[in-house]
């Protein structure tokens, strides 16, 4: 009989090993799924994990794409991880991402055709504020009326999507676009462009911001009182109150930070890789970032690695769709398995498995 036994303290070794184990298990289960779909599992796994980096034909295109995809994932996940550690569950980063992009683009487009060098910094600030303001709605409702931030933040994603569609077809539509939905191409305007900083790397200001966020979060959580309070509030809310932590302040702070970072991610995306406000601007970074945050164990360095890995499966998944005609839902299921297995093997860091040799009593 198998038995789980709680460890006196979480095992450090397993905490490090479980993400790797989860990736391996995902490869196995995903391979079985691909085989069931009639595709070669070995080839599919190779295309997803290997070809984007090292295939001579694809790598030159795929490698920069990894940073382009990883940037927003990491930036959003870092913000979310602070809240998740404090027990504040912001599930609506996707909405904050949209609102950041909308607010930033609206700021820039309102000043069109000005060429002032202050426009892009102004858009960055507007983007952060847009995401922050959208996250303040669940924050204030939670602190004032004790609503559940999971529901409120999630439902506000759909509101944000409606606002995005409305803006793309109305307020922010390109007046010279012959009636097609979508704003002006922001990345073709010097004042609003978020360029690739080093050619063929995918590095843009959003990726730089993501790296800075990783470092800041690391310092915050390890050296600063606020990080300590965040961890304390998540692990032992009563002890946090006893330590003088104001729960409402912490909720506002965590939701605000994650909202602002998601807004920044949206702004850098709309001025860079996406290029314009369009109806289908958001592609799910805000939701995938939740997986990234947990895959990275809510640890800044872990999130950095998890974001890169997730981006790899994105690019590799696209390649697999193209090369092997694997359906898109199968790729999404594959990515979902990663979180599933991570949560499943997570139990090993807090429990050890005992095998009872003793038979019946």
């Amino acid at each position: 009989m198998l038995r789980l036994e709680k460890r006196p303290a979480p095992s450090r070794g397993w905490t490090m090993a479980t993400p790797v184990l989860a990736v391996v298990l995902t490869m196995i289960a995903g391979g079985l799924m691909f085989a069931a779909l009639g595709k070669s599992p070995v080839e599919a796994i190779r295309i997803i994990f290997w070809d984007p980096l090292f295939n001579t034909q694809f790598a030159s295109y795929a490698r920069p794409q990894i940073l382009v995809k990883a940037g927003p994932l990491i930036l959003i996940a870092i913000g979310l991880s602070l809240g998740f550690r404090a027990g504040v569950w912001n599930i609506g980063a996707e909405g904050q991402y949209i609102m950041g992009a909308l607010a930033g683009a609206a700021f820039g487009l309102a000043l069109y055709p000005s060429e002032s060098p202050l426009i892009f910094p102004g858009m960055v600030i507007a983007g952060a504020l847009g995401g922050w303001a959208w996250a303040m709605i669940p924050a204030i409702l939670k602190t004032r009326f004790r609503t559940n931030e999971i529901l409120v933040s999630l439902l506000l994603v759909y509101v944000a999507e409606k606002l995005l569609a409305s803006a793309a077809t109305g307020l922010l539509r390109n007046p010279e676009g012959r009636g097609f939905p979508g704003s002006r191409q922001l990345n073709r305007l010097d004042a609003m462009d978020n360029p690739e900083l080093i050619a063929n790397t995918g590095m843009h200001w959003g990726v730089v911001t993501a790296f800075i966020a990783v470092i800041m979060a690391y310092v915050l959580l390890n050296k600063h009182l606020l990080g300590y309070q965040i961890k304390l509030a998540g692990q032992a809310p009563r002890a946090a109150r006893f330590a003088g932590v104001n729960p409402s302040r912490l909720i506002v702070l965590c939701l605000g930070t994650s909202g602002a970072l998601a807004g920044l991610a949206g702004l850098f995306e709309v001025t860079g890789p996406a290029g314009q406000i369009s109806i289908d601007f958001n592609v799910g970074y805000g939701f995938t970032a939740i997986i990234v945050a947990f895959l990275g164990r809510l640890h800044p360095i872990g999130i950095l690695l998890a974001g890169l890995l997730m981006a790899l499966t994105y690019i590799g998944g696209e390649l697999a769709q193209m090369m092997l005609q694997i359906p898109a839902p199968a790729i999404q299921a594959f990515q979902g398995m990663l979180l599933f297995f991570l949560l499943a093997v997570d139990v090993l860091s807090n429990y050890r498995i005992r095998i009872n040799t003793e038979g019946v009593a």
Partner: protein
Amino acid sequence: MSGPALLSIDGITKAYPGVVANDDVSFAIQPGEVHALLGENGAGKSTLVKMIYGLVRPDSGSMAMNGAPYAPAEPRAARALGVAMVFQHFSLFEALNVAENISLGMENPPRQRDLAKRITDVSEAYGLPLDPFRLVGDLSAGERQRVEIVRCLLQDPKLLVMDEPTSVLTPQEVEILFRTLRTLRDEGTSILYISHKLEEIRALCDEATILRLGKVVGNCDPRETSAAEMAEMMVGKSLAAPARDSAEMGKVVLKVSGLSVDPATPFGTPLRHIGIELHAGEVLGIGGVAGNGQDELLAALSGETPTAPGSVTLNHEPIGNMGPNARRALGLLCAPEERLGHAAAPDMSLVENALLTARMRKGLDRSGFIDWQATRAFATEVIETYDVRTPGPDNAARALSGGNLQKFVIGREIMQDPKVLVVNQPTWGVDASAAAAIRQAILDLAQNGAGVIVISQDLDELLEVADSFTALNEGRLSNVRATGGLTMETIGLMLGGAHDMHEPDKEALHAEA
């Protein structure tokens, strides 16, 4: 011994990782006997009764009931054979009434009306008045225990196991419980009575088995053995009572006046017109049965529940509206009852837990950046000074035993040199030698001129350390009395007597007293 034992236990051993909870334990319970199982916290009493009740299976050894092998695989099997148990912690739903709670635990619950009738019959027969239709949330701890007992009695048990039943009762309620248990015994029910309170065992039990560190260290007839002898068997050595000189009381340091706090939850206890004057060098004991507002009072003093500014003053400065850290800065420190999750964060290291309350007074941060080196030094100092047994300050709080963590928590506050210290249940679940160390530390602190408030359910403890005594009953404090010259009878009445049992039993009580 005459006839077969009701339950005989033979060579039971049960080991958990790192500790042998029961080591070759053997004893027997005769029919119609009140059998005491005596031992300190951690002696293995709970593990043993869990095996009797089918919650845990022994590694080796055997049990027999009326001569037949007895190895319950689950509590249901134990209940079917006539074993019933009243746990120390109640498993009742506050939002349901008494009858509903009882029917939830039954295999084939009868209709509510029939059940209510049976509850009333049983509770009257055994002198345990209980209204089947009252919400459990509105009941006192003593009444909740009656629900659990009646639940057991409805099964018509042959063996009733009671785990530390009196820890939540006033002395008067204890008397009522004992009368019930004696009635049961006279009807032929055996009772296994678990406790570490020696006087109770001497008053009630026919036979005692004493456990220490998982082993049976002795048997005795408690009616013929002195409490001191039993204590020595239980602890393994004789303990010195905490020493204290006659304290000199200084001026008033902490004053609470007209403090009223509404409960935070529907079944919480409101505080009503609390008034306290605490002098420098004084140890004020606040007694009371659990759930009468102890947690709420501590929260109001620690600053977790803000109140009107003037209702709490420290050295004449109004602090009622200040948060915990502002109060700490002024010298008012607290140690809550719940160690894991309130006084300390279970998964955090002792270093991190040192920071939890000591940041203000020990200056452990510089403009928000934590000085981990100084924090570690402070944690190490606490560990060394208060003899906290742990491999090191980086161990998680939950890896420590209850007593060691409590020493850490109390030490953490005392080493910050408080002007006023408020502790709630300082020795709850702590072994005797650690408890003695903690009490001594409290007395030393008062000796050095701090005011100390000790909130405790353990009356013996309060009589030992406190200069003055007051009782918390349903959110109100009684008048403060000097500890010297207080009798258990008076204290019991200060604690509210027997909750809700005024009419028929008051006379009976006086007759017995």
